């Protein structure tokens, strides 16, 4: 027992220092599309776009790479946002009726990766305001804000409310202008008697400032009344007595007319004549999708164009009966009429157009539509209004993400071919006009190397993303559906809308055009991608899916029609007594299919029974793939197209595995029956029912506390045969002198199988001896070498073979192409087996335990993901260490040295409740090659691979870094034009240029993990820095050191206390 205490490593100050130079935890950027967006704003002067979300986050985007994030203190939905143009300020209205002012401010200098970076810009909340309720009335519904109008002068904010009143706030102080408030009564007085008819005017629906005369605003009430109000004289200039319920208003640029949209799906054009104070009828009025009842037009925009008639853009207005469920936006100009048909709800939209007052026309150049699940940009200058590919905010989740895979340091050749394949894919449907939102300047240096993120989706596609920089941009999309014969005709790809709009335009009304790529519906759930493995040197890709399909693909630049070879591997091997009740295997296409340039399928291997593939690995040098399901694993030679091995891992008691996922239906039926019985039972006399209920209640109280059963894992747990990991290695399995190819497989029940492989032409040891005999039948062979049963029976998460120096073996081709240091084959190898409960290193070939770390026994957490990562030091250029990074079910990261398995650092990374986040986490692999290459580069942002990704929502990846040296984060400058107001920080410089980088300072912004700063040394230092102001580089360093040491000491003291087993306090 004492040993638990003493086994801990003492704190060696030297080691502590090295640790600080190696490890640091930072959350850097969020990739993807914000989850549940709720508001949109655009600053035409700074060319910045802001998106607010239902969780209270604000994200500002400019040119690609320019990003700012802010988070409201309350997680309330952002309902509206307005930029103060050119000032770098933003107003936000929350669902709780508060108005907040945000500012882009220069933060204190900070040190990242040993380099001082000053003046980072971040988004900070400056002040907030909420309208007081009317005295005497408790509910604030009357003062609930419906619309905000920011005057062009930026000095006054008009606030329309539910009660019909309009309040005026001074900016940027956000103080109410007393006595200025315009209540509804004032307006009602000037109304003609017949229009008044005793009813209220309803909430303020729209506020619009006159485009030419600054002091005048248009106030639209829900009932239909529109008032042109003069702010200086506080008098209604003009009354437009609309009868139709109002939805929105928009001025025409000249100020001579405006357009109103209504709840009946119509819009009206009103002329502003100076004579008569009352206008009863609009100039023109139309219901575009009539005559049958239509839904409301929620928002309408009217943009004049030099080229001809004005462009009219409006959302909604669809015929209620036939298309009431569509999410549409209409663009109309003259005879051209397009109804954009989106797959998710339209949140808001704006146009990018010229705002200079001297210009005569709006000349809209682009339309930006924020949908619930994606951002769509339409080029309004190119005929046909094509859509523009977005450089960021890509909807990662266009089909649900089922797995992800990261490839670092992609060879330029492969990168280029992928980019070309991607370009060919989207060639027709997109214009190549430049991105219209281009505020700010991306100061981040170009990434030294290319990184790929591959996401597998439910619809059978694999998407390739450029993950090198701050913005995650799509490169290429691969669909595996065409390999199979599915219900829908595979020749017309449902994902490819390029061919249909023209055909439809003729006959169909409204003229729909499908836009956007968010498509949550999968044709066949069996197509879903479960595992991906890519060899970046040989351009081979292995994709495995839900129905036991494993597809080997090769990269080709030419279009090709060919038949895919199909092999079936029976993993059950005539094991008796099992019947698969799950889904059928996918039916392969029997005819040759056309495959576009890019990755083209070569071989299809189908596992039987067709259970979902749980592990896959590829060794392109040996032309072998290994794959595992819940029933067993197989080895396949894709070069010779023959199966080498099939091994069943099922336990005889394992019944669940056999029935497949669909057998749950049965239990549903059963539970239905039970609940019916319960209902029938309950139809007894009332008295009895009460008694019963009481009894049930008493029973419930008895079992109320949560209990956990303490039993050791037994062998007959269900799904014990699931293959969790597979690994190829060239190592010593048979004896200590001859090494050769091996395959390792680990299962859910703690079994590890090691096979010695004989690959023709590979291996020096035994293969050579037998080569004389094996020459004729040149096919790979596998011989079972070892079986290891971990006694604790915990699932094997990962297997990794370490070379003689204790370093992980390099990837295939890396050693032979001299991209990595060759593994040490002279000293004894060892194998690291990580189970859910412990990490263990065994010597090879004898497989005797060398070291271990019992994580669960000590900390009570389970290993979820494990990766080998190289960390390089900030201090010494050429010093690096191999480290085992391990993510637990509590969402924290443990770092261990290898092969000693000594705990190094621990960081809280993901909330433990965020199960999908933990499950989706991918680490970037170790990159020895890139280490070599980037030596000549400067040491500022060596962008290699000490980071990971995990999903924070279905549509967003959070990127984090564990390295003290490498950070991928936004670095941008913005030219601000801000009047010297009360703000104390920026008075001196006008205009203000703020170069620097943004990062989320943990004090105010974004991260949901605000309460755990102690474990991340850097963020901890940040907190303190904020208060102390200026510090030099050296100071920061020392400071970091001391903080860290103190913290470590604290931790050690705690640990000591925790481990003092001898005497218990009380």
């Amino acid at each position, binding site marked *: 027992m004492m040993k638990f205490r003493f086994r801990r490593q003492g704190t060696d100050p030297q080691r502590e220092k090295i640790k600080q130079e190696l490890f640091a935890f930072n959350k850097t950027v969020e990739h993807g599309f914000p989850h549940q967006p709720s508001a949109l704003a655009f600053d035409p002067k700074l060319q910045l776009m802001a998106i607010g979300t239902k969780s209270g986050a604000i994200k500002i985007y400019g040119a690609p790479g320019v990003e700012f994030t802010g988070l409201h203190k309350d997680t309330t939905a952002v309902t509206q946002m307005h930029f103060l143009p050119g000032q770098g300020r933003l107003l936000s209205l929350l669902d709780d009726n508060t108005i907040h002012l945000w500012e882009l401010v220069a933060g204190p200098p900070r040190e990242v990766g040993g380099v001082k970076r000053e003046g980072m810009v971040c988004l900070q909340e400056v002040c907030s305001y909420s309208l007081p309720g009317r005295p005497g009335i408790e509910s604030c519904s009357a003062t609930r804000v419906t619309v905000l109008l920011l005057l062009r002068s930026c000095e006054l904010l008009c606030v329309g409310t539910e009660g019909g009143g309009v309040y005026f706030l001074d900016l940027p102080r956000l103080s109410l202008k007393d006595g200025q408030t315009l209540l509804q009564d004032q307006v009602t007085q000037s109304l003609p008697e017949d229009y008044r008819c005793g009813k209220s005017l309803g909430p303020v629906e729209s506020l619009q400032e006159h485009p030419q005369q600054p002091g005048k605003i248009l106030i639209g009430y829900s009932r239909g009344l529109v008032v042109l109000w003069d702010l200086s004289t506080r008098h209604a200039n003009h009354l437009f007595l609309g009868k139709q319920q109002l939805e929105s208003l928009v001025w025409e640029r000249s100020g001579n007319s405006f357009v109103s949209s209504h709840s009946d799906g119509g819009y009206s054009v009103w002329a502003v004549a100076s004579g008569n104070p009352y206008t009863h009828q609009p100039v023109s009025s139309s219901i575009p999708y009539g005559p049958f009842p239509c839904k409301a037009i929620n928002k309408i925009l009217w943009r004049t164009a030099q080229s001809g008639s004005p462009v009219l853009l409006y959302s909604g207005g669809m015929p209620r009966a036939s298309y009431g469920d569509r999410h549409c936006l209409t663009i109309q100009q003259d005879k051209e009429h397009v109804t954009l048909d989106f797959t998710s709800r339209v949140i808001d939209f704006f146009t990018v157009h010229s705002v200079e007052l001297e210009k005569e026309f709006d000349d809209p150049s682009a339309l930006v539509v924020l949908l619930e699940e994606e951002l769509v940009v339409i080029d309004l200058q190119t005929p046909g209004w094509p859509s523009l590919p977005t450089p960021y905010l890509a909807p990662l989740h266009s089909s649900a993400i089922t797995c992800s895979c990261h490839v670092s340091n992609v060879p330029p050749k492969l990168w280029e071919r992928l980019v070309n394949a991607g370009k060919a894919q989207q060639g027709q449907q997109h214009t190549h006009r430049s991105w219209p939102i281009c505020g700010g300047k991306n100061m981040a240096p170009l990434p030294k190397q290319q990184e790929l993120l591959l996401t597998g989706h439910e619809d059978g596609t694999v998407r390739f993303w450029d993950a090198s920089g701050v913005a995650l941009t799509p490169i290429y999309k691969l669909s595996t559906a065409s390999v199979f014969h599915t219900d829908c005709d595979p020749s017309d790809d449902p994902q490819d809308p390029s061919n249909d709009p023209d055909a439809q335009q003729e006959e169909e009304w409204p003229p729909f055009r499908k836009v956007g790529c968010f498509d949550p519906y999968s044709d066949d759930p069996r197509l879903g991608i479960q595992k991906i493995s890519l060899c970046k040197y040989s351009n081979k890709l292995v994709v495995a899916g839900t129905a036991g399909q494993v597809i080997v693909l090769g990269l080709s630049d030419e279009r090709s029609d060919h038949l895919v070879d199909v092999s079936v591997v029976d993993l059950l091997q005539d094991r008796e007594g099992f019947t698969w009740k799950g889904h059928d295997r996918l039916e392969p296409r029997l005819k040759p299919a056309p495959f576009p340039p890019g990755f083209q399928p070569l071989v299809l291997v189908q596992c039987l029974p067709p259970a979902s593939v749980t592990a896959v690995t590829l060794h392109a040098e040996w032309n072998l793939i290994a794959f595992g399901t819940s029933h067993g694993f197989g080895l396949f030679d894709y070069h010779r197209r023959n199966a080498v091995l099939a091994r069943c891992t099922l336990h005889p008691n394992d019944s669940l595995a056999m029935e497949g996922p669909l057998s749950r239906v049965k239990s549903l039926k059963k539970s239905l029956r039970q609940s019916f019985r319960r209902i029938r039972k309950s139809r007894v006399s009332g008295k009895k029912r009460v008694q019963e209920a009481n009894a049930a209640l008493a029973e419930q109280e008895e079992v109320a*506390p949560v209990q956990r059963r303490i039993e050791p894992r037994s062998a007959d747990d269900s799904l014990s045969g699931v293959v969790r990991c597979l690994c190829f290695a060239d190592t010593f399995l048979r004896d200590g002198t001859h090494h050769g190819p091996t395959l390792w497989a680990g299962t859910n029940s703690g079994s590890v199988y090691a096979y010695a492989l004989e690959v023709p032409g590979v291996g020096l040891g035994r293969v050579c001896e037998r080569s004389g005999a094996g020459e004729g039948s040149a096919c790979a062979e596998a011989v079972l070498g070892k079986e290891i049963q971990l006694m604790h029976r915990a699932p094997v998460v990962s297997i990794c073979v370490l070379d003689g120096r204790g370093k992980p073996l390099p990837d295939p081709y890396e050693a032979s192409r001299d991209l990595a240091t060759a593994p040490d084959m002279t000293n004894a190898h060892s194998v690291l087996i990580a189970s859910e409960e412990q990490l263990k290193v065994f010597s090879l070939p004898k497989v005797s335990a060398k070291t271990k770390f019992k994580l669960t026994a000590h900390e009570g957490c389970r290993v979820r993901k494990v990766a080998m990562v190289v960390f390089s030091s900030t201090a010494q250029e050429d010093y690096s260490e191999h480290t085992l990074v391990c993510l637990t079910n509590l969402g924290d990261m443990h770092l261990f040295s290898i092969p000693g398995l000594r705990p190094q650092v621990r960081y809280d990374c993901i909330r433990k409740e965020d199960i999908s986040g933990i499950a989706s986490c991918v680490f970037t692999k170790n990159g020895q090659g890139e280490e070599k290459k980037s030596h000549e580069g400067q040491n500022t942002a060596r962008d290699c691979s000490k980071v990971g990704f995990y999903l924070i929502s279905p549509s967003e990846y959070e990127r984090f870094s564990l390295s003290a040296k490498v950070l991928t984060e936004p670095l941008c400058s913005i030219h601000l034009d801000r009047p010297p107001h009360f703000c104390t920080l920026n008075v001196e410089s006008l205009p203000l240029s703020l170069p620097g980088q943004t990062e989320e300072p943990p004090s105010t912004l974004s991260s949901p993990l605000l309460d755990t700063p102690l474990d991340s040394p850097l963020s901890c230092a940040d907190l303190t820095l904020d208060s102390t102001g200026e510090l030099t580089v050296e100071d920061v360093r020392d400071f970091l050191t001391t903080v860290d040491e103190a913290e470590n000491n604290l931790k050690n003291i705690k640990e000591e206390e925790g481990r003092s087993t001898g005497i218990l306090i009380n």
Partner: protein
Amino acid sequence: MNKNHRVPSNRSLSAVEVKSKFGAEFRRFSLDRSKPGRFDEFYGLLQHVHRIPNVELLVGYADVHGDLLPINNDDNYHKAISTASPLLRLFLQRKEEADHLAFGTDSLTRKKNTVLSAVLLRPDPNRKKPPVIISLPKDFRPVSSIIDVDILPETHRRVRLYKHGQEKPLGFYIRDGSSVRVTPQGLEKVPGIFISRMVPGGLAESTGLLAVNDEVLEVNGIEVAGKSLDQVTDMMIANSHNLIITVKPANQRNNIVRSGGGGGGAASGSSGRSSDSGASYYGYSSPGGIGAAASTPSHIIQNFHPEELESDEDDEDLVIEAGGEAELIPCAPSASYSMPSLPRYEPHLNLRTAAAASTSSISINANGTLPTSASSGSLGNITSTTPSPDRAMERRSLEEDGTVITL
């Protein structure tokens, strides 16, 4: 007796030639095979022959198989005389220097070393008190017990649940709860983990070492304070092969009343069953107790070495190797897929040291026999916790029969 002394070597059949060795000295004499006499006479003879009248001796002899066997009563003395053919080789040791492990199979070949070292080593004053010889330590089966009585506060109890080789489940449930602690600030309610329920027939219930509502304080030396129920569950399951739980029993009436200095013979009462509830001592932690244990058969002696706590699982991961070189079974090239038939396995446990391996009951001695001591000697009274050897045997045979499914 003296008459027999110095009789010139008489090679008649009735005489047994004796060569007695004590330290570096030899004495040769003979005994009458038909009238060997009693052991105490023989013992006195030896002391006389070697001129060591006041030295306590351990007498051993080499039997026909070359094993070193003890002579300490009339029966084995007679056996030794009757089997000697023709020479009876005796090895004498001072009792305080005695190497008890020397006896047993293959001991003579090993012995050379130990006897030599026994001779060369100076008498160690610390080793005055010889361990009582009732059986060899490794022959004992580890059983569930209360441990560390001497170092824990009286209100706490540390319980070791040993599950090896038993089919009995650990059999208890834990829950969240809160307990009141005395702190400098006064009474404070703190969250804690409690035992909520016992499974009838489970290990926890049958040993009676744990009870419902006992508060769990530590699991294998790690405090549970601040850990969630799930974490504690995981910790217990991960340590389930050798689970050591420190609890604060809900029933504090059965606590040990300790009498002064470290409990030589103090009785520790445990709640529940009496079958094994005598004072239990941790073999190495209170050597003083051993004497008592030896004299009172109801006591359980545990012979754990401290390092065992760590070594529990290393020895147990089962490695099965495919037999030698010959089993390469080439796959049929014609088939689209093929499965090489499974080679026969020679299962073996990776025993690292004989001592370590033999302490854990699930691992089998190198020669394949079950630890013989499952029912040996004074342990007969702990049947309630003794696993049925049949089950273990069953399991073993399952592992051995080559088709490796059942692991």
